[in-house]
């Protein structure tokens, strides 16, 4: 399997009035046409890693890396125009809450069409047809009607599916999903994940799945990276989770109450200062 994305010693830091905040402190991994999960809690740097790959880090932040390479293109030194052309057509990102990530004043169909026409030279008619078939591909039954609806007129699950349609319509090779189902109800989560599963498999895409939910990520992805305080503390195959070595990973696995387990009190994560070093 050829490598699509290479990240070596990625560092992202934000200068603030009270000092430099280092969000990502030397993260390295590679990605081929496979599914990689990045798991961490708030402040672990997982979202900033995803955004750095997309080129969406805020302007005042400092990014550096020994290598940040997508299919031969050096993402750090590439000019803004090149990065823009990559976004949407070759690398796409799905965000958490469609309430905030879809434009509230544009109809859903129009947003999808806009994405397509930015990257491909197609007629309006063809763009509309492809948008509707994309909406059908994410299992939105009444695609023609939903095409004209605005984001606030559809449910969360449908909005998220519309977002997936919008991001995949230009046929990207790499998908970065930042907590794509965290804002959804549990039953809807499974539907959306099922759709994502099928699309990623059918199109042979690479996927980076960022989440705080270790169990979910391990059931969806091939490999899992666990981040803590800006660094990777463990990297393992998803099927190998039971043999996690790092105490943080073990703690994360054990700390949530699940159906059927009866532990009173729940085991609590005992944070060691060494983990953050």
């Amino acid at each position, binding site marked *: 399997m050829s490598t699509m994305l290479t990240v070596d010693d990625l560092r992202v830091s934000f200068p603030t009035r009270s000092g430099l905040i280092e969000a990502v402190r030397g993260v390295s991994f590679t990605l081929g046409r496979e599914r990689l999960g990045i798991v961490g809690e708030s402040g672990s740097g997982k979202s900033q890693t995803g955004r750095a790959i997309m080129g969406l880090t805020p302007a005042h932040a400092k990014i550096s890396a020994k290598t940040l390479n997508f299919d031969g293109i050096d993402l750090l030194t590439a000019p803004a125009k090149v990065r823009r052309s990559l976004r949407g057509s070759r690398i796409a990102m799905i965000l958490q809450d469609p309430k905030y990530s879809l434009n509230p004043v544009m109809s859903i169909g129009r947003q999808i069409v806009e994405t397509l026409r930015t990257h491909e030279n197609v007629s309006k008619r063809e763009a509309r047809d492809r948008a509707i078939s994309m909406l059908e591909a994410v299992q939105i039954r009444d695609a023609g009607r939903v095409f004209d609806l605005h984001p606030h007129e559809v449910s*969360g699950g449908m909005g998220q599916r519309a977002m997936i349609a919008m991001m995949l319509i230009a046929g990207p090779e790499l998908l970065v999903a930042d907590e794509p189902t965290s804002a959804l109800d549990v039953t809807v989560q499974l539907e959306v994940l099922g759709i994502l599963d099928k699309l990623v498999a059918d199109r042979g895409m690479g996927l980076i799945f960022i989440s705080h939910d270790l169990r979910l990520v391990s059931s969806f992805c091939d490999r899992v990276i666990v981040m803590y305080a800006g660094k990777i503390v463990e990297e393992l195959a998803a099927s190998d989770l039971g043999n996690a070595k790092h105490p943080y990973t073990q703690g*994360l696995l054990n*700390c949530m109450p699940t159906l059927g387990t009866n532990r009173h009190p729940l085991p609590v994560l005992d944070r060691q200062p060494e983990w953050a070093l």
Partner: protein
Amino acid sequence: MTAIVSAENLTVAYDDFLALDAVSIDVAPGESFGLVGESGSGKSTLLRAIAGLSPVTGGRIVLDGKPLDVKHRDKAFYRQVQMVFQDPYGSLHPRQTVDRLLQEPLAIHGVQDAERRILRALDEVGLGSSFRFRYSHQLSGGQRQRIAIARALIIEPQIMLLDEPTSALDASVQAEVLNLLEQVRRDRKLTYIMVSHDLGVVTHMCERLAVMKNGKVVERLSSADLVAGRLKEDYTKNLMVASKGFVRAASMA
């Protein structure tokens, strides 16, 4: 069982929208009762209606044998019933120190020796006195939720209404706060009514629960029954399956 709190055919309607449709539940004293459902099920509305934060348009709420006045709650009610909210970032006043936040309920109810009570409250939720003069933006999510719990407990209520108290927290912090809630309940012999969308959390914390959908109660059962899979309604079965997590389709190489 003589319930300490019960809702009888409670209805909450906003214009045309029926948030709660003739819902009835009974909570025994000292029990931990769960309300489970997805968004829009009405579980939070039920909790807020009991607290007096949602307008009740039908039915009644009975506390300790006495029906509550629909429009107005008296101070004695607030001494008995307190609530912990979901969002730790919104439930503490942004301009007040922890000390001031904890003083407020004491001042409203005219409770003396505030100093001692504040220190004891902080201690009970596992935070030292060094937290006393911090502002809420200087606290992490888990710490804020602990302060919210301390604030609810400081006037010694008997009944605690918990509206998804841990769903906005990180996984590792959730466990700590859930343990704290359990311990507090044991120590003070409190009654809990807890709302959650997470079946794992609800079965861990509660003995009996009610599953809600679209403003109605779909099924009432015990946690033991839920865990064992002795479910009657299809909706509850769906929820169970969904909480087991994602199962990947036949793997592609």
